[in-house]
């Protein structure tokens, strides 16, 4: 099975781990991430205003490329997932944006939101299946107590993203279970880490991250995993960081036994 793959800017630089381990794991799990050509940055945040068109075009380009190749579009970064999925929803359902975006793009065939955006975790859950994943695990993470940190961008608004129950998600917990570890459920797992606010109001972000860390460690987590480079940054650099924070692909690679192999 081949998927179009949209890595996003951060995975090329600061979050190489998130990307590398995903590719290695995919290989073991029997699917391929085919990076789309000439992708451009999604912008990091979804432009909410209904009259924003130009800022959505890079996403439309990526989506259209996947459509042309007849593949589903996979992302790893929460922000890319959020932006791509919402732009795709606009292209499907918002007439005005669809018409204007297509006018800009001048494609051979207009893009109407045909592509399907998947997060890597969704591929594991819906395409591979966590039961299958469990069978492929060679080094189960037995005994580890892992807290899932979802953040905002994967979950909200639930109506559009449809990733999981936005107030009580389970996908990463199920993922943790599949790898043989014990998920730690704590109520702050879908609270915001502060996001881009940490650029200008570090104190606010720090307070929020501390709340998350306190809750997670209070419920007994040894480590947290996340899918978002910015969450990872804020949680580690911007808080008292009582527990380490890893990308989910890293523990995946570890459990699948492909972490050690250096390129």
């Amino acid at each position, binding site marked *: 099975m081949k998927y179009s793959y949209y890595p*996003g800017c951060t995975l090329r630089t*600061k979050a190489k781990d998130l990307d590398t381990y995903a590719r290695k794991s995919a290989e073991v799990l029997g699917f391929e991430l085919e990076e789309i050509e000439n992708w451009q940055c999604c912008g990091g945040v979804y432009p909410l205003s209904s009259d924003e068109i130009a800022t959505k075009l890079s996403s439309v380009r990526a989506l259209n490329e996947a459509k042309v190749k007849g593949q589903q579009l996979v992302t790893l970064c929460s922000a890319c997932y959020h932006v791509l999925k919402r732009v795709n929803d606009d292209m499907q359902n918002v007439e005005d944006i669809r018409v204007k975006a297509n006018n800009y793009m001048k494609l051979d065939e207009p893009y109407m939101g045909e592509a399907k955006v998947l997060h890597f975790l969704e591929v594991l859950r819906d395409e591979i299946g966590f039961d299958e994943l469990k069978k492929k695990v060679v080094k189960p993470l037995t005994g580890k107590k892992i807290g899932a940190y979802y953040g905002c961008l994967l979950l909200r608004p639930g109506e559009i993203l449809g990733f999981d129950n936005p107030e009580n998600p389970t996908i990463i917990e199920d993922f943790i279970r599949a790898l043989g570890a014990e998920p730690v459920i704590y109520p702050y797992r879908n609270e915001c880490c502060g996001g881009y606010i940490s650029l200008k109001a570090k104190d*606010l972000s720090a307070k929020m991250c501390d709340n998350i860390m306190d809750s997670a460690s209070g419920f007994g987590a040894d480590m947290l995993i996340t899918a978002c480079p910015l969450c990872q940054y804020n949680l580690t650099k911007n808080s008292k960081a009582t527990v380490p924070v890893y990308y989910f692909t890293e523990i995946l690679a570890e459990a699948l036994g492909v972490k050690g192999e250096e390129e």
Partner: protein
Amino acid sequence: MSSTNSKTAAAKIAEISGTNPLKCMKCGKCSASCPAFEKMDIKPHQFVSYVVNEDIEALAKCESLWYCLSCFACVERCPRDVKPGKIVDAARQTVVRQKGGNYLSANEIPALIDDDVPQQLLVSAFRKFRR
């Protein structure tokens, strides 16, 4: 800002946010959910009232614009489908689109970042704080 300008600006905010502020029933669930509440001078639920009352001048000057995290907690939980986060963002848009409306200048960035800052942080902040 003259009253007609306020009216147009308020209408513009309602339009690009795609929500109807009149549906708000003042339950405060947005403000109860907002992680940046303490930093906000105009609280999320008040934000909606300001648009209804067309007090756009105050909105344009307020700090809240720059503290909203776009975490969508209020959007997710608003029982009236008003989605205050979208209104805050629309107001922010109307400010940054004006000349001199940028909240972040390129010059100040080096002092704000460290080696580990992910690109995502910068591009997101640029989108939110600048034209």
